[in-house]
């Protein structure tokens, strides 16, 4: 479904991604792990058109999407829930959710989806007309995830969705990931909580300093001693 | 050495703001001077002259700039062959340049202005004036236009003569406008008219403002018979005239009068709201020159100008610029070709006078050897009629 080939991305003169290749197949959950500054978020930003790659190609459903504007990438069916929440702080929770469905026109289905995500995060329903910028960190994170779910994408990209969430909610997030995956959404997941990520994923890639160091079946990675030592705190 | 001097080309210069809102007028002045010099083959007596233009405005300021004036003053002195300056346009700029030229070690160097009307430059006005501008003790500044005080007084006298009893005075808050407005106010009070505005020079109108209807609504409530607007047309005068008529009615109902800052603007004359407006003018305006004396020096000059550049000079100052140059040339002709000599020619002996036949201003132009002012105190009272300035009567200041 998504195929990245020899991708290179730089910030000014700093090379952040030095030629990585990876693949996400339809119906999969793929996770990308690696320590701080490895280039995970950079890769995701390049996929969703926020960064222009310096080299390599990104293909989605057989079409080249590198070089497309961010909004055109979204039109192809990729939704990206970015690092650091990036909610619209001066808008209410409801307005944020509506923006998640900006490209959709099916009013009835949107209302249904909204109902669904509010069911998932009752706290958001409680605060439906609060300005989202005044919410607590974790509440904002819920909103960011909920907003991404409103997009009904073919491929959902999530950058550290569990950051700052209470343990109960972390569980909930991973359950949700599994659930929507079952309903047919392909997922590319970046997580610091590598153990949890690998436990839900089908496959994983380990990124280190802008290159892919290891890849394979999630189960295998989970039991790999090197991965355990470096990322799982084992 | 006089033969030697004769072979040397002497430079005369103009020092005018060539950017911003007075550009068209001053550009026209420079063109007129160039044309005039060409017509006399660049000769002044036995000397050959050439012409150099200085700009005392900057792009950033969009108008005259004090620092640019200071720089120009230095440049005039530093330019070895330069003997006299025609300018400046703004009195403030003259106040900066004159003292520098005055202290020129090879000078003093002569400056003759076409447009400075601030009285303080030549006569006692504010404390210390005019001596503060002549640290050397010798005069080096002359002008071919009359000062604000004369025009203001004449206007007040005229107002009384047509039976006005209550006036309201406005000024554009600038040096010139306040000057005439102040002179008008003082004279009007002396003549027993009721001045409805407060302050020595009346109320200010803010040229940056785009609307004067509120201002005139206030004035209307005081029921004046005449509004005197001291200032220049460029300071949003068009709008002022329009709004006066909008609120107070046309100029037969409540009269309106302005100084020569409003003369020479075809745009103004063509406004329906300007019809019937009185103007004073220190000398004869361009249009009148053509009408009064079609064969005179001024009239033929204007004709030549139109032939050379395809349009009339903008405003009345171009002719005054030429008149100032005539004074300078006469002084050069009379001199030994040095700065000091040229200046002496104006301020000593019989001084300079340009006979009516030659003067582009249509009448004899004589410069006072004591003050440097033109001796002509004649003011023309005009009225705008049929889209044109027409002479009503000549007025000699009492």
């Amino acid at each position, binding site marked *: 479904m998504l195929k990245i080939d020899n991708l290179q991305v730089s910030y000014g003169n700093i090379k952040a991604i030095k030629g990585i290749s990876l693949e996400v197949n339809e119906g999969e959950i793929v996770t990308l792990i690696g320590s*701080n500054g490895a280039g995970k978020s950079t890769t995701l930003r390049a996929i969703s058109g926020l960064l222009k790659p310096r080299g390599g190609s990104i293909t989605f459903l057989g079409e080249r999407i590198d070089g497309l504007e961010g909004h055109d990438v979204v039109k192809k069916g990729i939704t990206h829930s970015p690092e650091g929440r990036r909610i619209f702080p001066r808008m209410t929770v409801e307005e944020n959710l509506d923006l998640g469905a900006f490209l959709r026109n099916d009013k009835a289905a949107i209302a249904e989806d909204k109902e669904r995500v509010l069911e998932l995060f009752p*706290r958001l329903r409680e605060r439906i007309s609060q300005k989202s910028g005044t919410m607590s960190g*974790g509440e904002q994170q819920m909103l960011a995830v909920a907003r991404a779910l409103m997009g009904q994408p073919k491929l959902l990209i999530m950058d550290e969705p569990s950051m700052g969430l209470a343990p109960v909610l*972390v*569980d909930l997030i*991973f359950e949700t990931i599994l659930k929507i995956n079952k309903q047919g959404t392909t997922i590319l997941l970046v997580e610091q*909580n590598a*153990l949890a990520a690998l436990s839900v994923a089908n496959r994983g890639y380990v990124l280190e300093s802008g290159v892919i160091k290891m890849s394979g079946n999630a189960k295998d990675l989970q039991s790999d001693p090197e991965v355990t030592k470096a990322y799982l*705190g084992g | 050495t006089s033969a030697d001097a004769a072979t040397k080309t002497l430079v005369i210069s103009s020092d005018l703001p060539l950017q911003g809102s007075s550009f068209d007028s001053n550009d026209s002045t420079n063109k007129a001077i160039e044309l005039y010099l060409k017509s006399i083959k660049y000769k002044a007596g036995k000397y050959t002259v050439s012409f150099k233009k200085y700009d005392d405005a900057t792009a950033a300021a969009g108008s005259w700039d004090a620092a640019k004036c200071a720089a120009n003053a230095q440049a005039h002195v530093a330019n070895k062959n330069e003997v006299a300056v025609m300018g400046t346009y703004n009195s403030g700029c003259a106040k900066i340049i004159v003292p520098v030229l005055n202290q020129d070690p090879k000078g003093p160097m002569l400056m003759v202005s076409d447009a400075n009307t601030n009285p303080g430059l030549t006569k006692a006005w504010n404390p210390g004036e005019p001596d503060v501008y002549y640290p050397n003790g010798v005069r080096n500044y002359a002008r071919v236009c009359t000062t604000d005080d004369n025009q203001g007084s004449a206007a007040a006298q005229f107002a009384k003569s047509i039976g006005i009893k209550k006036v309201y005075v406005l000024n554009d808050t600038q040096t010139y406008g306040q000057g005439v407005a102040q002179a008008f106010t003082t004279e009007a009070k002396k003549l027993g008219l009721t001045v409805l505005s407060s302050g020595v020079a009346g109320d200010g109108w803010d040229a940056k403002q785009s609307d004067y209807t509120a201002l005139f609504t206030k004035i209307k409530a005081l029921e004046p018979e005449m509004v005197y607007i001291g200032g220049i047309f460029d300071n949003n005068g068009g709008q002022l005239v329009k709004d006066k008529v909008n609120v107070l009615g046309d100029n037969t109902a409540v009269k309106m009068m302005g100084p020569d800052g409003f003369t020479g603007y075809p745009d103004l004359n063509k406004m329906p709201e300007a019809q019937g407006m009185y103007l004073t003018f220190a000398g004869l305006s361009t249009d009148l020159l053509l009408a009064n004396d079609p064969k005179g020096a001024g009239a033929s000059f204007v004709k030549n100008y139109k032939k050379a550049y395809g349009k009339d000079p903008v405003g009345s100052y171009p002719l005054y610029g030429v008149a100032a140059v005539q004074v300078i040339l006469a002084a050069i002709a009379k001199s030994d070709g040095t700065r000091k000599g040229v200046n002496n020619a104006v301020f000593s002996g019989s001084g300079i006078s340009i006979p009516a036949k030659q003067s582009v201003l249509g009448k004899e132009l004589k410069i006072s050897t004591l003050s440097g002012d033109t001796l002509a105190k004649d003011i023309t009272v005009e009225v705008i009629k049929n889209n044109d300035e027409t002479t009503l009567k000549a007025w000699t200041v009492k």
Partner: protein
Amino acid sequence: MSSILSAENITVEFGGLVAVNDVSFDIPEKGIVSLIGPNGAGKTTFFNILTGLYKPTSGHVMYDGQEITALVPHKIAAAGVARTFQNIRLFGSMTAEENVMVAMHSHLKASLATTILGLPSQRREERAAHEEARALLEFVGIGKTAGEFARNLSYGDQRRLEVARALALRPKVLLLDEPTAGMNPQESSVFVDFVHRIRDEKGISILLIEHDMAVVMKVSERITVLDRGEKIAEGSPAEIKANPRVIEAYLGKGVGAGH
């Protein structure tokens, strides 16, 4: 153990919303205590009260025997209550060293005049400040980055720099708001030792907000749990772990709490 910072009956309202409801709490001298609770429980708000950023609707904050409720934030900071932020707030285009030195503002005595004249006393003071900043950066383990701009540091280093900057205030109390967010489990476990070092080597009391239970349980001497603005439990890590109310409202039992 006497307490260094204590909050008495704090209530905070935002419009109609009661974010913190009559919570009392104290930090013992040289203690390490934690504040946990579900998202939106009022933890960060409580921090903001302690540091003077928000003023409580009612209640008092006492520090070192004095009331500080009314003081402006910079005075509270200067008095020795330091904090880090949930969303990192470094001075991005200043170097790491400069970041630390900013926090020394209240200790330094140089005036405008002595600075301009460059009097020896001022220079001596600056030199000492540089050295102290260096030492603090070494202490938190990022001595190498002193000359780098804060925004260029990696996420984990930024978190450490925030701590170094807070320490430069020479605080008696240090408040840390989710310091391990965005660190991987490996780094988090290193962090636990670091917290102990701060307390042991510098004698600073520490209050921690954290969602990573592995960290909280290892580091805290006492834990307070907030839920919807109310204090629902308080006790040792073992007690809290076993408290059914806490488990229901906060901990859950799935993958998230698994390590």
